[in-house]
């Protein structure tokens, strides 16, 4: 179980210090130009970036738009760029920053408004790799005398468990220069989920997913920059999954070659 610190605080106005943050604003109803807006906020040791954004929204400037929900690094909706690095707002603490704190919307996605990006292409890439259990056998009616359907040993679980921790926050897409250069690249999270299901002992869909994985915009667009794994807030290590996918794709090609 994760014991990582999460943000739950309401900032008290009698806090010890104030911090200065700059937010990149984009209000398409007013102008097509972006601009930087500065805010001074009261902060304490437990102030997360999400607390700070909420404080701005509630106390200073209600026009600011951003996404958030759970405040505890599981919904994956509060991703933003902090000084150029993709971060979850709820898992980023202002105490760790001296000097400039520049907040921008997630890189490599079209911006809709302020810190809100359009994640459509990411969702399309996710759907493309069929990230769910595919079973050739038709679903049998539940038989209480033989409830062995989908049994899995701890060892079998261990093979893919790490890759199943993805929360679809999209930070890895903002970290990936290959996705920035070519949005058709399926990208870290989608390829990781594909690999996660390919590794699952209950799944029979590898053949279907290989067609998506084993092409230029699939695993082969990855050059192992590895920044996706650095920024992943759940330590999924997408770079490892994508490159294990390359090994699988190469095997798949070789086998297909011999089968003729």
């Amino acid at each position, binding site marked *: 179980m994760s014991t990582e610190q999460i943000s739950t605080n309401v900032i008290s106005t009698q806090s010890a210090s104030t911090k200065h943050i700059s937010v990149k604003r984009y209000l*398409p*109803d007013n102008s097509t130009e972006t601009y930087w807006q500065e805010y001074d906020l009261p902060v304490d040791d437990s102030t997360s970036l999400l607390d700070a954004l909420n404080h701005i929204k509630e106390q200073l400037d209600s026009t600011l738009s951003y996404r958030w929900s759970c405040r505890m690094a599981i919904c994956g909706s509060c991703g933003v760029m902090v000084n150029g690095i993709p971060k979850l707002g709820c898992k980023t603490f202002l105490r760790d920053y001296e000097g400039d704190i520049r907040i921008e919307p997630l890189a490599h*996605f*079209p911006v809709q408004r302020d810190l809100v990006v359009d994640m459509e292409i990411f969702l399309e890439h996710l759907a493309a790799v069929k990230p769910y259990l595919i079973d050739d056998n038709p679903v049998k009616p539940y038989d209480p005398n033989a409830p062995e359907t989908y049994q899995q040993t701890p060892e079998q679980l261990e093979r893919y468990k790490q890759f199943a921790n993805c929360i679809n926050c999209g930070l890895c897409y903002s970290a990936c*220069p290959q996705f920035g*250069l070519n949005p058709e690249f399926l990208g870290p999270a989608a390829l990781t989920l594909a690999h996660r299901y390919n590794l699952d002992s209950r799944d029979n869909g590898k053949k279907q997913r290989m067609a998506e994985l084993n092409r230029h915009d699939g695993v082969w667009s990855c*050059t192992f920059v590895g920044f996706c794994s650095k920024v992943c807030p759940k330590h999924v290590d997408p770079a490892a999954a994508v490159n294990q996918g390359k090994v699988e794709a190469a095997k798949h090609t070789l086998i297909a070659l011999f089968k003729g």
Partner: protein
Amino acid sequence: MNKSTSQRLPPLKRNWWLKHRFFKLYMLREATVLPLVFFILCFLAGMVALLQGAESWQGWIAFMGSPIVLLLNLLALAASLFHAATFFVLFPRVMPLRIAGHSLPDKAIVAGQWAGVVAVALLFFWLLGRGGV
């Protein structure tokens, strides 16, 4: 939200990799190929010189001994060692090895690869040493 008001992002600029230390290190890793290309060209030239005869071979030996070539080849050696160091760390993540149902620790795989480098280097030193006698 109306899609037409979405701001389309401009494509990534060519200097994207200058923005972050991590990307610079990545480009350095990729750039190690440049001195290695120089080494390979030297090596191929040596093969050709060997085929052409003694005079050509002596010329090649002299060329390889010149300070600038020596320096570039030392750079190629350093580059290949740096690339190996980055690659060896990545290897267990790409090919996690399992023996009898247990995954090998990453450190053991990295150490194994360096042991391989040392073994190959020792083999070549031995072969070259024997050739000299």
